[in-house]
């Protein structure tokens, strides 16, 4: 059994018998294969990081002769490397579910629900395997190639397809093992759960196949009902990735037909794997992992502890500070949570911080990844609404500092109200500041290289992720940390978190496609535009709708679907599109930390698997309140946003 095996550890295993032992053995064998494959994938990622570093630092910066089309590695090798790590996450039970109604179902009920959820995930994977194989075949038939180097894509797509195929037995074993433990006779549970789900699924699929008229004539009702179905599944402990994929695939099946459902599923999966925006996540996970192994993270937090020692909650404060610093490097809030979370969470735990304060500070601090430039949400807005990215970045700076201030205040208030949430402060010890400061120098230097490189225009924010991983690896090597399996541990943790987050986002993307084709979000936003209200009322209502959409959709998806229409509405009331862009970034970033569907919360859970989701939910609430206060200030005083760009 693996140490990450949270679910199985929660219930006492049923009496061992030959069949159960065989299933467990099969689970272990496939798990071992999956972990070998995943390690190869992770090493491949590190290889990509090395090539990027060489190209960017040596060829481009030093010699002005970059390797032409070198970024096409991210269309070819890198997606294959990510796909290779997916199966091991499943074997390690790195699957996200939302535990809201646990007490209601009781331990026995939960066992059944989890077994059913695991079988649904098997079905989801069956769909993904089929869909991805079709993408690989079509790439082979069409002879698709990359834009500049004209490299054939099919070999990489077949590696991806084979990697998805490996996911199928891995999850099948998980489901078999869960089902075999349901009843004293192992085959009872297996038969009931597997046959029951097979019947239920085939009935549902054929039912939805015939709903096309209903979906065409009552699109919004149908979309609403699917949201309901999604919620029922989530509350019934279906893994989130499966719940999202199944709901959306059923919707696409009804609206477009079976072959289109397969095509969209495969296409979104492929699109995600080649997406540059998310490619930074595994790199930053590695960087964080190496920083922990080499002791750099301990050093930097010891230094922060010494600096903030008079304050109760000093480490929570420095987590916000660290997130801000990191947020100035990357345009992604999940990447910020991935890096800061993997480093800060163990440190805060060790020093007696409450689970919820640590979780709240990390998850909400992560939003600074988007709120401070560079920011992919701002870029998406600027592209859709045709505004200057530069002006938007300028406009975001004061609101970002307002965020930092409000988060600091939130932490100080929390520890005032509940002193048990963080250890008590001690007076400054200057000798301690000096020694910890000296020891933190390599970490500060690493930060300086990555930050300075972006600032000086040596590399882009995406390239910085790979370079950061290489620098952290080099520090680990120099400190002798590669011995004793430290390297492999980092690789295992990276693959685990990567697998969890990628499966989740595949589900989110298919959902996004479905809802974008129903017009649900536009209808909600458009309805507000037609209500004949005062300008500020429209703005407030739009913000409420956005927070509500954040319950089901990913923030980037909301931005893509509604940015242009909502900007059209507020601009008609005389508001500045740049101001609205900043407000929208702020609102969708509230969405990533509001329970239950918040990407930052899930990312935190994937880097700190032992953390309880309930503690995470409770922990972010004070920060959500601070965010709402900030939002009210931005709406009441647009000058906070518009003053800085107006100075230019």
């Amino acid at each position: 059994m693996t140490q990450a095996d949270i679910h199985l550890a929660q219930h006492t295993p049923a009496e061992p018998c030959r069949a159960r032992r065989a299933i467990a053995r099969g689970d272990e064998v496939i798990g071992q294969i999956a972990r070998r494959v995943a390690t190869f994938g992770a090493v491949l990622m590190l290889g990509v990081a090395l090539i990027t570093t060489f190209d960017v630092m040596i060829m481009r910066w030093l010699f002005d002769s970059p390797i032409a089309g070198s970024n096409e590695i991210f269309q070819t090798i890198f997606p294959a490397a990510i796909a290779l790590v997916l199966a091991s996450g499943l074997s390690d039970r790195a699957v996200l579910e939302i535990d809201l109604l646990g007490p209601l179902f009781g331990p026995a009920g939960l066992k059944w629900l989890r077994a059913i959820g695991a079988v649904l995930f098997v079905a989801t994977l069956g769909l993904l395997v089929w869909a991805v194989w079709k993408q690989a075949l079509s790439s082979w038939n069409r002879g698709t190639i990359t834009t500049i180097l004209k490299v054939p894509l099919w070999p990489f797509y077949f590696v991806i397809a084979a990697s998805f195929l490996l996911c199928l037995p891995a999850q099948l074993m998980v489901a078999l093992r869960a089902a075999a433990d349901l009843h004293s006779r192992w085959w009872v549970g297996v038969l009931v759960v597997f046959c029951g789900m097979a019947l239920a699924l085939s009935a549902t699929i054929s039912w939805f196949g015939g709903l096309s008229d209903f979906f065409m004539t009552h699109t919004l009702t149908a979309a609403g009902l699917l949201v309901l179905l999604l919620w029922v599944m989530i509350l019934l402990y279906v893994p989130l990735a499966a719940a999202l994929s199944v709901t959306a695939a059923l919707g696409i099946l009804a609206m477009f037909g079976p072959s289109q459902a397969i095509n969209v599923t495969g296409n979104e999966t492929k699109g995600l794997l080649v997406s540059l925006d998310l490619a930074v996540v595994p790199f930053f996970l590695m960087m964080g992992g190496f920083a922990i192994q080499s002791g750099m993270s301990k050093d930097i937090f010891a230094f922060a502890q010494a600096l903030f020692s008079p304050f109760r909650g000093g480490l929570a404060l420095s987590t916000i500070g660290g997130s801000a610093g990191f947020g100035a490097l990357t345009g992604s809030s999940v990447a910020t949570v991935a890096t800061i979370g993997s480093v800060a969470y163990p440190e805060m735990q060790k020093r007696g911080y409450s689970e919820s304060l640590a979780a709240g500070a990390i998850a909400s601090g992560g939003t600074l990844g988007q709120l401070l430039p560079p920011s992919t949400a701002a870029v998406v807005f600027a592209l859709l609404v045709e505004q200057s990215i530069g002006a938007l970045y300028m406009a975001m700076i004061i609101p970002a500092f307002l965020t930092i201030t409000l988060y600091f205040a939130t932490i100080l208030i929390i520890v005032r109200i509940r002193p048990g949430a963080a250890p008590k402060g001690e007076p400054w010890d200057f000798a301690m500041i000096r020694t910890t400061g000296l020891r933190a120098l390599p970490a500060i230097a690493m930060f300086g290289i990555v930050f300075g490189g972006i600032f000086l225009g040596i590399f882009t924010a995406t390239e910085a992720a790979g370079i950061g991983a290489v620098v952290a690896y080099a520090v680990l090597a120099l400190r002798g940390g590669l011995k004793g399996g430290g390297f492999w541990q980092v690789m295992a943790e990276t693959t685990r978190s990567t697998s969890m987050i990628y499966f989740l986002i595949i589900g989110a993307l298919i959902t996004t496609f479905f809802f974008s084709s129903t017009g649900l979000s536009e209808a909600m936003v458009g309805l507000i535009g037609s209500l004949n209200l005062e300008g500020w009322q429209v703005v407030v209502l739009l913000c409420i709708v956005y927070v509500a959409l954040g319950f089901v959709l990913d923030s980037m998806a909301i931005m893509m679907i509604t940015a242009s229409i909502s900007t059209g509405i507020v601009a008609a009331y005389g508001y500045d599109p740049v101001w609205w862009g900043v407000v929208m970034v702020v609102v969708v970033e509230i969405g990533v930390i509001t329970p239950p569907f918040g990407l930052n919360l899930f990312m935190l859970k994937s880097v700190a698997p032992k953390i309880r989701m309930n503690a995470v939910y409770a922990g972010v609430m004070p920060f959500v309140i601070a965010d709402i206060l900030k939002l009210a200030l931005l709406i009441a005083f647009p000058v906070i946003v518009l003053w800085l760009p107006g100075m230019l």
Partner: protein
Amino acid sequence: EQHLRLATGQSSESLLQKEAYGVWAEALNTESNGALRVESFPPPFATASNMWDRVTAGVADMGIASLNNTGLPLKAAFVASLPGLGRNTEAASVAMWKLYEKGLLDVALDEVEVLGFQTAIAFTLNSKTPITKLEDLKGLRVRVADANSANAIAALGGAPVSIAFNEAYQAIDRGVVDAAVGNVNTGVIYRFAELLPHEQPAMAFGMTTFVFAMNKDAYANLDDAGKAAIDAWRGERLSRFMGAKQNDFRTSFEARLTEAGQLIRAEMDEAELARWSVAIDPVVAQWIKDTPKGQEVYDTFLAEYNTIDGAN
């Protein structure tokens, strides 16, 4: 009434949608007397990178696909992206259709019903400081977007760099690259011109080609009135309309940028231009060599282009 989903790849508020794609969709609806109901779907229904897949799979019934992003192993269809051609998009769009009609374009396009072509505003070299001679370009890091412009920049002595679009503004701002091959469309709409105000107008770096594609089954399933409405626009009419719109956009964008001081044209005399032309000749020659019937495609394109360009 037959419902058709048109994936535009453009936001519903964009100029291109309002003045070009949406106008065509609306015209199909009116001219078909209710036989068709074409509805525009902005991203993320279909994006540049999955447009071809969406149309061929029948998720979208019609779509506007950038050939660069299809990933198809096209050769002849990239003729308009060669450096050193003219900048009349109406002429180029119609010339692309003529090539298609003559069966000179890649067979890979036959996976869809081709309704017409649109070439986007021609690329030029935009930079932070004026580029007037080859020496200015020596070792300069230039952002490029496709193979032909990468080859052209390399042939001229620059260092082509490819950077994803969503990182391009920051990369230019911070100096990761010093110049970019781009057009006034990105200059205005994405404000690249505020970072790169200097343009070298003497040499164009090709036009990105878009194909108006319709799913084969969706077309076959139309009734006669629906087919007739689609066919009335198909080919030269659609290509000419879209190409002419691109010319209009260019004129108005250039006026706006010039007024804002963000379009400063660099000088180049005849002798210098001749050096540039000599430098890029091998790029064109190599393309002709690598492309089946390359010489014929190139000559036919130029002949068609010049006929329409001359008539304007």
